[in-house]
């Protein structure tokens, strides 16, 4: 549609109208011409057909009586029809019986071959055949050839008329469209012109002249309304602009105040933070102090228990010492000659064993008294239990206390501190020992079991069960409190159980007590297996 691009709407409208009317005119002319040609041909055929009928009737008898002269005479009547070029009369067998040629026609032309009742247009001619009948019997056929020059002349005439009409109508269409296109183009042009003015001058106070009540009219009205809105908005915008500065000032002031407030707040916070840090440091120091105090406390408790054990230890050492003394005295009493080397060797071996035992007791005592590190290592609980009995075995024997051990043979190792655990066990056993004082058939049962937990982990439970005096239920709650003791003044520190409690807590374990007065007490220690 390049034809319509980049030209004004006026020209577009003109071109559309001219093109439409032009094409329509040409189409109408073509249609009429075609119709004319067909009508003319039909008319021509009809005319020729009736001519052939008349001639046919007239020449029928010449065929009956084989009279060629009369036939040709009859055919020569066609002279009155100048468009008939030639005519031929055929007998039934197709032989030409008579002919006729127009003066202007070429008389040497061979007659066309006989055809049935047909007509053909060819070469600007019309050839028509028509049978000749008489009393229902076909006697022959007549063929007439007519020139179509009349049609050509007619078309020519028609063409001249068509061109004239087209030219005149085109001129009228041009004049009419030139006038009428203004109805549409003028308001649009006005719109465009005003638009341009507004956009170049930036003047939104301009308005358009309202148009008709059609789409363009609505467009103009809409445009004017839009211009109104723009103008109003501009004014509002200006107003807002003026107001905005005031508001910005106000807001800035507010912001400054808030900022200042916030700064002072931050300062305050910093100060509090500093204070907090100081107190935290103090707390850490206090904690450290507490820790050292605690370890000192543990140590002193340990030493206290050693003191307490001293008597027991003396007993322990006494037994091998007695043995050594007796053995050596026996040897000294014998004569040197009587000395049997084997006997001496045996005795010396026993003495060595006794001294070994004493050394182990002393060594153990020394290592127990030493301040331990707090590191946790894998610990064989059986060993720890045996170690704790080293210091207590003799005491229990002397007091006729029966010791029964029920230890699970597949005991896993426990993560912990062996010295601390030994301290706990010694505490447990010495408490039991004291509780059994003056009781009939005194006994202590040590039971060690593995407990499987639901989550797959394992725990070890160590129970110390005695059939001693028991603890009154009113004391059971306080028993793990520091400095709580039921023993006579000077006999206990009152720290033993509380320290044991602390040690077991350090091992993430639990310690429980259950007791029935007059029947006995059970301590239950549970340690996790790692």
């Amino acid at each position: 549609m390049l034809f319509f691009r980049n030209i004004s709407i006026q020209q577009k409208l003109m071109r559309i109208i001219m093109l439409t009317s032009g094409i329509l005119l040409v189409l109408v002319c073509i249609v009429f011409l075609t119709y004319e040609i067909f009508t003319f041909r039909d008319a021509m055929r009809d005319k020729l057909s009736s001519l052939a009928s008349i001639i046919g009737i007239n020449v029928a008898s010449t065929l009956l009586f084989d009279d060629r002269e009369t036939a040709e005479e009859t055919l020569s009547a066609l002279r009155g029809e100048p468009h008939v070029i030639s005519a031929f009369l055929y007998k039934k067998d197709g032989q030409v019986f008579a002919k006729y040629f127009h003066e202007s026609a070429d008389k040497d032309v061979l007659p066309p071959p006989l055809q049935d009742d047909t007509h053909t247009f060819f070469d600007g001619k019309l050839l028509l055949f028509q049978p000749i009948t008489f009393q229902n019997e076909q006697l022959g056929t007549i063929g007439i050839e007519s020139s179509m020059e009349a049609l050509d002349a007619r078309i020519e005439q028609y063409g001249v008329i068509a061109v004239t009409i087209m030219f005149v109508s085109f001129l009228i269409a041009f004049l009419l469209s030139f006038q009428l296109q203004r109805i549409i183009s003028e308001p649009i042009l006005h719109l465009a012109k005003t638009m341009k003015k507004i956009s170049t001058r930036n003047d939104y106070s301009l308005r358009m002249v309202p148009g008709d009540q059609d789409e363009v009219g609505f467009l103009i009205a809409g445009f004017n309304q839009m211009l109104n809105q723009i103008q109003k908005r501009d004014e509002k915008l200006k107003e807002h602009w003026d107001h905005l500065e005031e508001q910005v000032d106000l807001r800035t002031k507010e912001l400054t105040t808030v900022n200042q407030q916030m700064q002072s707040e931050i300062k305050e916070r910093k100060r509090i933070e500093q204070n907090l840090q100081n107190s935290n440091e103090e707390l850490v120091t206090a904690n450290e102090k507490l820790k050292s105090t605690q370890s000192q406390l543990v140590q002193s408790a340990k030493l206290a228990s050693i003191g307490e054990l001293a008597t027991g230890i003396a007993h322990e050492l006494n037994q091998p010492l007695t043995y050594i003394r007796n053995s050596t005295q026996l040897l000294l009493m014998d004569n040197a000659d009587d000395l049997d080397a084997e006997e001496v060797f045996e005795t010396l071996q026993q003495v060595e064993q006794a001294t070994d035992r004493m050394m182990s007791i002393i060594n153990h005592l020394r290592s127990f008294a030493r301040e331990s590190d707090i590191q946790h290592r894998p610990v064989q609980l059986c060993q720890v239990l045996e170690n704790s009995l080293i210091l207590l075995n003799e005491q229990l024997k002397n007091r006729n206390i029966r010791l029964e051990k029920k230890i699970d043979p597949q005991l896993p190792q426990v993560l912990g501190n062996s010295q601390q655990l030994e301290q706990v066990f010694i505490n447990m056993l010495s408490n039991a020992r004291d509780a059994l004082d003056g009781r009939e058939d005194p006994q202590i049962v040590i039971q060690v079991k593995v407990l499987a937990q639901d989550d797959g982990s394992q725990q070890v439970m160590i129970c110390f069960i005695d059939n001693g005096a028991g603890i009154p239920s009113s004391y059971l709650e306080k028993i793990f409190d520091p400095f709580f003791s039921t023993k006579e003044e000077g006999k206990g520190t009152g720290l033993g159980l509380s320290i044991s409690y602390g040690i077991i807590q350090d091992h993430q374990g639990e310690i429980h007590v259950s007791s029935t007065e007059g029947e006995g007490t059970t301590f239950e220690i549970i340690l996790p297996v790692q």
Partner: protein
Amino acid sequence: MKKHGSLLFKSLILGVILIWTSPVILNATTREFQVKAAFIYNFARLVKWPKGTFIDPDAPMSFCVFGKDPFGPLLDALAKETIRGRQITVKRVKDIKETSCHVLYISKSVEEERIEQVFRELPPFGVLTIGERHSFGPLGGHIHFMMEANKVRFHVNLYAAEKDGFKISSKLLRIARVVNTEPFEKK
């Protein structure tokens, strides 16, 4: 259109066959009478008989030959044809009074006096007379043959025919060489 051709067509074919097969028989005379037989048939087609000639619509039309018969079998071939639904019968007659004819051909052999006598004996209307002599018309005959450049042509005595109640088609009249519309002067 009739498939079983007209006499003209058939006789033409017959003629062609004869020309090829029997040149002895087919001389100029045979050919002439072949054409004349066809003409007689065509005359009967182009002539309307006066009302009351035929007893009923299906009554046959009789072609009679008086005098020496020059046609031989040629005329008998017409007996197969019909004219307006009427079957043709062909007869040779000696006594006119005894037979009824619709077409009466009087051959050349018959003398003028005899012809006059036959005309007197004929019924007053309904018999188309065809002759060979020049005097056949003046004697009161309706149609008579003549030769023109070796072609068979004929005269029509329209006056006599109309007087005797016949209506002759213009088609026939157009072909006729001479048409008498006035009575011949008495000799």
